């Protein structure tokens, strides 16, 4: 894989995938929109529905152990079609990267530093991500240990501090939403949140313990999802129906904390969570973009693309969404559907075509 010969262990893969899914503070409003106070239950249902697709990714990784997604496309679909699909994937990764830059930047501006332009936040995030990607997959994997621990410890601490305000009756009645709404909520949660784990197909060739990939990825997804279930439970238990009117439910939940004189600054915990989780997520996406572009053009070193691939998203930050209100709407009306296409439909098609080609090849060999 070009410039980066770094390798990661199964445990690091698990922590990376868990940290990747922890970056859901900005997705929680989407999930709340979809599931109301049953958001925690919908996250569990979505995980159950999504798990078969994880096996699709694992099977693809197993069939092509030394290849990333772009190389798999080349081998399965051949030159022209493979390259076309890979180019589409890279454009989608770029869009996803932009959205994951703009959302936390907008969150920071709206809730904490209203006079600072979003581009300033996005640029600072991008420079950190550039540094991480420049150091390679091993550095990103090592950072995931900190990200994972800090995020979990912060949420557990907040949970304990808010236990007094936690009201079990806020959860009642459980699952009183109609089936059609459950289906659309599950589609939103899978399309915009869970299925993003698909990007790890770009990183699987870097894992040393091939036999432990399945266990590590499944454990990572479960831990990441558990984190979001805890967030959902916390928001519902503390805020109740009030949560439905919040653009940032977790932020509103943390505001309920009363800790003597530091009360007014306790939201720094939210900023820390947002910072660590989105930093890791964006690092993984940017790294995948870098490796993907290098594989697509068959470059000797992807490192040469670090500067142009930082400049291009910077030029697109202001062009991502037209307004704050559109971010939420656009997220569910475009990225959810794009997620379903790129994370589920195309990988499934790739697996089916690869399996057919392999069978035909084997039969051809037997006939000869």
């Amino acid at each position, binding site marked *: 894989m070009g410039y980066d010969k770094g390798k990661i262990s199964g445990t690091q893969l698990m922590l990376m995938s868990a940290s990747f899914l922890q970056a859901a503070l900005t997705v929680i409003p989407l999930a709340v929109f979809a599931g109301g106070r049953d958001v925690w239950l919908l996250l569990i249902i979505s995980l159950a529905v999504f798990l078969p697709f994880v096996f699709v990714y694992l099977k693809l990784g197993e069939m092509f152990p030394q290849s990333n997604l772009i190389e798999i496309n080349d081998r399965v679909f051949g030159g022209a079609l493979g390259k076309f699909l890979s180019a589409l994937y890279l454009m989608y990764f770029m869009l996803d990267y932009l959205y994951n830059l703009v959302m936390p930047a907008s969150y920071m501006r709206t809730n904490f530093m209203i006079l600072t332009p979003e581009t300033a936040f996005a640029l600072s995030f991008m420079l950190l991500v550039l540094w991480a990607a420049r150091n390679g997959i091993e550095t990103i994997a090592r950072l995931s240990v900190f990200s994972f621990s800090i995020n979990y410890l912060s949420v557990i601490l907040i949970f304990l501090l808010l236990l007094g305000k936690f009201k079990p009756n806020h959860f009642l009645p459980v699952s009183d939403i109609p089936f059609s709404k459950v289906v659309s909520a599950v589609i939103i949660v899978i399309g915009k949140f869970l299925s993003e784990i698909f990007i790890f197909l770009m990183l699987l060739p870097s894992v040393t313990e091939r036999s432990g990939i399945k266990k590590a990825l499944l454990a990572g997804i479960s831990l990441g999802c558990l984190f979001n279930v805890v967030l959902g439970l916390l928001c519902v238990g503390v805020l109740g129906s009030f949560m439905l009117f919040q653009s940032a439910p977790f932020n509103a939940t943390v505001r309920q904390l009363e800790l003597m004189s530091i009360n007014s600054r306790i939201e720094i915990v939210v900023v820390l969570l947002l910072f660590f989780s989105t930093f890791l997520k964006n690092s993984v996406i940017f790294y995948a973009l870098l490796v993907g572009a290098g594989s697509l*053009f068959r470059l000797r070193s992807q*490192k*040469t693309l670090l500067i142009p691939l930082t400049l*291009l998203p910077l030029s697109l930050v202001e062009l991502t*969404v*037209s307004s704050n209100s559109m971010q939420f709407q656009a*997220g569910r*009306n475009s990225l959810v559907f794009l997620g379903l296409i790129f994370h589920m439909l195309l990988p499934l098609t790739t697996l089916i075509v690869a399996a057919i080609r392999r069978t035909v090849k084997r039969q051809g060999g037997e006939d000869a």
Partner: protein
Amino acid sequence: MIWVEIILLAAVGAAGIMEPIKKKWWKELVVYIVIFLLGSVLLMLQTAGIKLPYLIDEVSKFFKIVLHLSYD
């Protein structure tokens, strides 16, 4: 303002372009220049005040108008 931007971009661009030139990696150089120019032109167009379409809004419109998929 646009001149400041051009000078900054030229400085950043020159910093990264040296490696492929020194190593005579022409393919890397071409990919570098194409992506860098694309980013630079987009930045300069915005600085010049030219209105460009919003990416995610356009994708949403495509799903809504062409495929009739929407959560509104």
